């Protein structure tokens, strides 16, 4: 904490990127400090570093790939706007995914946009056979994921789509390590059974 705090004092507001170390070489906490000092490009590096995994988690959480970009954009925007209050404790990923899950939950509970999975008559849907084959497995798993409880789904996604370690998942969700493991094991077992493969 004191180490990263000391770095902050070296950064002038609006300054160009520090010499001698590329922005991409900084860790997440350092980049948040640089973004706080309005160093150009610092927050972009954070976005580029994490956006792929966040998009995968959001798309699978929501079951709608089209909504994922907005949810992830809102996540980064919220973090950017709160950068002045960010506390450097080496837990940026936990913070990032906590905000993402909140955004996902809000998107799912939006009252203005009503989910209706089977709204279009089946005979009007003409996806090509090759596309169906390409995406079939992924969609089957994503559909089964949607049948899990929120608690189990979150742990499974954080573990596999976000590639977080158990202790990071515990930080994101604010639950003990044992709870993370139990939910993951239970979630995977239920997924397998939901897919009709038992």
């Amino acid at each position, binding site marked *: 904490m004191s180490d990263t705090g000391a770095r902050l004092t070296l950064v002038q507001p609006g300054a160009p990127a520090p010499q001698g170390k590329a922005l991409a070489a900084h860790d997440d906490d350092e980049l948040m400090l640089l973004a706080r000092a309005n160093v150009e490009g610092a*927050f*972009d590096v954070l*976005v*580029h570093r994490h*956006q*792929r995994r966040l*998009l*995968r988690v959001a*798309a*699978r959480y929501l079951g*709608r*790939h*089209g*909504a*994922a*970009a*907005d949810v992830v*954009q*809102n996540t*980064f*925007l919220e973090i*950017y*706007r709160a950068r002045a209050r960010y506390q450097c404790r080496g837990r940026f990923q936990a913070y990032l995914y906590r905000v993402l899950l909140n955004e996902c939950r809000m*998107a799912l509970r*939006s009252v*203005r*946009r*009503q*989910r*209706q999975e089977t*709204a*279009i*008559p089946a005979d*009007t*849907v*003409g*996806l*090509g056979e*090759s*596309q169906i084959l390409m995406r079939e*497995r*992924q969609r*089957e*798993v*994503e559909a089964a994921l949607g049948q899990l409880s929120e608690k189990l789904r979150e742990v*499974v996604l954080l573990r*596999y*789509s976000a*590639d977080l370690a158990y202790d990071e998942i515990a930080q994101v969700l604010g639950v003990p390590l044992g709870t993370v*493991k139990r939910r*993951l*094991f*239970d979630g*995977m*077992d239920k*997924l*397998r059974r939901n*897919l009709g*493969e*038992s």
Partner: protein
Amino acid sequence: MSARKVDRLALVAYLEDEITPSEQARIEAHLRDSTEARRELLQLQDIRDALSGAIPELESIDLAPAVRRAARAPYAPPAPRRWASPMALAGLAACAAIVLWVALPERAPEFRARSVSLQPRREQWAGIQVYRVGPHNDPQRLGDHLAQSDGLLFSYTNLGAHPFAYLMIFSIDARGAVRWYHPAYEREGTDPSSIPIERGAAQAPLAEVIHQDLAPGPLRIGALFSARPLHVLEVEAFVQERHGDLSDLPWPDAALETIPVEVVSRSP
């Protein structure tokens, strides 16, 4: 907890390498003896791989420019959005004759979309299909009229040698207000981008029924196909600047389909 349940959870723990050496030996012995256990382990690996894998249509998205733009944008409520000019309604009436897509057969299953800057070899077949959803949640192909209380549901077609990659769907009502269907635009200070679409898709559903506060009178539904993601604020700025004349898009690899419809206060 049954013995069977313990075995199943133990398999997940084994997959995760979260077991003690003695448990590992026990499970590996069980795997050697049980065809079913080996099959279940393969199924779990398959699920893990599916959830770890990339989602192709999302991989090329770069959110950094949108985040920068939204961070700079002043706070303003996202709806209602209106044209500032009193010429708005006149523009709305005039553009029905100007917009390229109006000349095409309305609500055909698909249509040929060619923006002015596209090369002839880059022909693209794209379009949307629109359904109105009334109080009984029974989707009907959109006709000439739409009730104020109806929701809208969309599917899209994106074919051809060089299909598009992104889509936005919005409407402009009789008050000149721009309403967004895809992407969702519901929070102030944000600037959502086009949704990624599948190349080669025919009538691919966007499975959401969306209700908007529409004024009675003429409504244009716009489907903006593009090669790169566009943003809500830049499209709204374009609509406002042009007073609703959408005939000359500023985005080189984009094409717009417009569908005129009349909003009525009662269900048609």
